[in-house]
């Protein structure tokens, strides 16, 4: 069991796959970590030596923002937009799509499940 970047305990998977369990690390960055720490991508987490785990941990600490810090950063960015009173902020406040998508239909990711409208029948 390996603890990297706080609470994350990836499993008996290949190293780059296991690393993607950390918020803020996707396949591309996981690959980059393996390259920087010279770890073969075919190896699994449970056969890494302590030194190698430490190298990964240090690389993440030095170069990346992950987990709580990253989440905080994103929420701060959204909060900044909302406080500014700009269009993007207004869209965030109303939970509507921010980047100009249509809202006549779709936009369900932002709006949540469809609400039934009284008196609307075919």
């Amino acid at each position, binding site marked *: 069991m390996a603890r990297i970047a706080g609470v994350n305990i990836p499993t008996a998977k290949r190293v780059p796959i296991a690393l993607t369990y950390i918020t803020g690390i996707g396949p591309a960055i996981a690959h980059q970590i393996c390259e920087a720490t010279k770890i073969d991508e075919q190896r699994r987490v449970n056969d890494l030596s302590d030194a190698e785990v430490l190298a990964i941990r240090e690389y993440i600490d030095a170069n990346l923002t992950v987990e709580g810090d990253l989440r905080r950063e994103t929420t701060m960015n959204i909060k900044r937009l909302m406080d500014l009173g700009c269009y993007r902020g207004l869209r965030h406040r109303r939970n509507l799509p921010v980047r100009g998508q249509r809202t006549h239909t779709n936009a369900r990711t932002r709006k949540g499940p469809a609400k039934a409208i*009284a008196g609307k029948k075919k």
Partner: protein
Amino acid sequence: MARSVWKGPFVDAYVLKKAEASREGGRSEVIKIWSRRSTILPQFVGLTFGVYNGKKHIPVNVTEDMIGQKFGEYSPTRTYYGHAADKKAKRK
């Protein structure tokens, strides 16, 4: 696609002129502009612009965070009071 850097930020010339005039005049009054497409430049910080939204000029106090965005972003063009059904649902 983002704008080429070599062009510099886009600002309508009259906005610059008006901003400069009010800077020199000292009196901070709402500077009425119609140019929603102009970029907010660092030298506009602290000034108040009345950005036209198609109906009236919305006063926008420029702060540091706004630099690099457009004036139009601060002057919403649509009014939406929600649907009657939504309001009824909320009251319950």
